[in-house]
């Protein structure tokens, strides 16, 4: 957790002071080995980075990430029935576990999920009988003998193709997708429903959760995030705008409207305000790698829940408690509705989440230490060690402290990802992707 080295990647570098909206990164996800890192943006593009193998010749480039492939995943669409434009922004990307030489990922916008296959081609056949080198048909009179085409090496080419398109499954906006540990099914969740799909079948899905009330006027709660358990293929969790988590067992019933477990923390009466519900709304939920715990993010805190204890979280960490007295202003400018993500490290000992002013926070569950770091070009040069930041709330102010009133609320770190095995993190700050690596310990302890 100490001494992170910085490297900044911008897939579409822009010299503009204000980034183009289409370039804003909207999701970040490592694959299961950490070799590949995918980002999606508001313009519907996916950029995949690959980690270069560490080479003895260049010890400084400790396996850095470079662009591997870029493709347009989703285009803007028009729903003619509702006369609405469907945004092409990529909401989530999830990698499938690798089963052969190809890599596969699911990417989704508000309405449609797509399965993409990424393959490498480094050889090409040469010596066709009927075609010449440019592919034009040969004059048959010139062909005097038959030859067997041979495979010759070529420059590596990465090919991406859409293998499945899962459309028309959702009326409301998709907020999460999660691949099941059975590697055959996945689920997609919108504001009111969760559907279960088979990866090979696109023309139907099973509805497994439906919280839509009979009368829409009775609507008081929506689904905000959902995820399959990493090991138990029958279990999944979904979070709500009221701050509750529901763990569901698909073996219990076809329609999992009745939860197996309901995780909810009672409201703290001393902290009650008109904004209590808004700040309790869970913006992200992640199972730990072990499957024993869940991590949730609400507006001011991250919480660790034990699957065996529904009454309250076992740990609560304050992300930016100094905002508690500013909720009215944050409600006014809509910042209170921002949805931050959270992440576990590979050993489930450290958790991370983003904040404002391009700050992100890490909490060590064992030592109870926490740190605030900043993702910005100005604050440090590439390969420089990151300096911890501090927000001061009045009282004694140290030299490099930032005061609460000078925080930039337009610079928000909503999307973060942690390498599954090593201490490498990816932080999306508007249109820039920052990769930080622990220079002291590359591996987990």
């Amino acid at each position: 957790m100490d001494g992170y080295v910085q490297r900044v990647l911008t897939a579409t570098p822009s010299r503009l002071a204000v980034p183009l909206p289409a370039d804003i990164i909207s999701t970040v996800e490592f694959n299961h080995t950490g070799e590949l890192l995918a980002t999606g943006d508001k313009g519907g593009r996916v950029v995949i980075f690959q980690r270069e193998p560490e080479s003895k010749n260049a010890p400084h480039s400790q396996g850095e990430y470079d662009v591997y492939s870029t493709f347009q995943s989703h285009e803007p669409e028009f729903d003619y029935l509702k006369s609405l434009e469907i945004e092409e922004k990529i909401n989530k990307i999830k990698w499938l576990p690798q089963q052969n030489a190809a890599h596969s990922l699911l990417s989704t916008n508000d309405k449609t999920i797509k399965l993409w296959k990424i393959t490498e081609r480094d050889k090409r056949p040469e010596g066709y009988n009927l075609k010449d080198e440019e592919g034009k048909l040969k004059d048959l009179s010139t062909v005097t003998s038959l030859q067997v085409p041979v495979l010759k090496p070529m420059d590596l080419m990465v090919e991406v193709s859409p293998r499945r398109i899962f459309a028309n499954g959702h009326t409301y906006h998709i907020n999460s997708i999660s691949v099941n540990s059975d590697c055959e099914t996945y689920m997609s969740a919108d504001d009111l429903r969760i559907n279960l799909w088979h990866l090979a079948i696109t023309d139907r899905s099973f509805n497994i959760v439906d919280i839509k009330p009979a009368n829409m006027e009775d609507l008081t709660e929506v689904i905000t995030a959902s995820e399959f358990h990493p090991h138990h293929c029958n279990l999944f969790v979904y979070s709500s705008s009221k701050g509750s988590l529901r763990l569901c067992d698909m073996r219990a019933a076809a329609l999992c409207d009745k939860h197996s477990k309901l995780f909810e923390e009672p409201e703290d009466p001393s902290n009650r305000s008109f904004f209590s519900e808004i700040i309790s709304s869970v913006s992200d939920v992640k199972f730990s790698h072990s499957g024993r715990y869940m991590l949730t993010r609400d507006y001011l805190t991250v919480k660790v829940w034990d699957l065996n204890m529904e009454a309250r979280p076992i740990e609560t960490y304050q992300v930016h408690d100094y905002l508690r007295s500013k909720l009215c202003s944050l409600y006014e400018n809509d910042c209170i509705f921002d949805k931050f993500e959270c992440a576990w490290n590979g050993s489930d000992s450290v958790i991370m989440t983003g904040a404002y002013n391009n700050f992100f926070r890490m909490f060590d569950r064992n030592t109870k230490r926490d740190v605030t770091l900043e993702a910005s070009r100005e604050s440090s040069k590439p390969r420089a060690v990151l300096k911890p930041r501090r927000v001061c709330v009045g009282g004694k102010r140290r030299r490099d402290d930032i005061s609460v009133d000078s925080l930039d609320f337009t610079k928000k770190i909503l999307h973060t990802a942690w390498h599954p095995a090593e201490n490498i993190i990816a932080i999306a700050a508007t249109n820039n992707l920052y990769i930080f690596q622990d220079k002291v310990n590359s591996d987990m302890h």
Partner: protein
Amino acid sequence: MLSKGLKRKREEEEEKEPLAVDAWWLDPGHAAVAQAPQAVASSSLFDLSVLKLHHSLQQSEPDLRHLVLVVNTLRRIQASMAPAAALPPVPSPPAAPSVADNLLASSDAALSASMASLLEDLSHIEGLSQAPQPLADEGPPGRSIGGAAPSLGALDLLGPATGCLLDDGLEGLFEDIDTSMYDNELWAPASEGLKPGPEDGPGKEEAPELDEAELDYLMDVLVGTQALERPPGPGR
């Protein structure tokens, strides 16, 4: 009470009102921007929430989470503002707000109308457009299509200022609402014409925390006529 000519002028003037409304609560003098005491909400927090709701509904496809959170917050604020004023829900369909003398009332009722119809539309269209039906969807096919009565919940929500919207004008506005809370010596019966007082107003009994300036504004808006004749008050 209001001559036709005056009424028409009032309607024109109203189109300009929303811009003024947007601005007045942002005035640095107002409590909205400062930290309002949380025990009881100021009416400016209420108005802020109503505006947010309005803005959310104006989106081509509103963010349901945002909408639901704002509505729930608005309910909390309303509950704290008027705990004693338990008005029965007005059981009238919100007709097209053709006459909107009370700006707040009209915007609230329009909101509730548009929210109800929007949410209804969502469920109506969903029934039509979902091509491959989810297999395990056991819901009755007609369940979500059409038919949902216009929102009572949202009307409930919007408090004493909403009235049923009739084409008759100001008189009709108060016809079937319990107007006892508005009764004070400054509120003359409709036939005599309404005269606003500087310090009393409809909000007097249920929200004593309202500023004088805010009361003035409310008075002006509710009375209508006087707003046409008087120059803008200090609250703007």
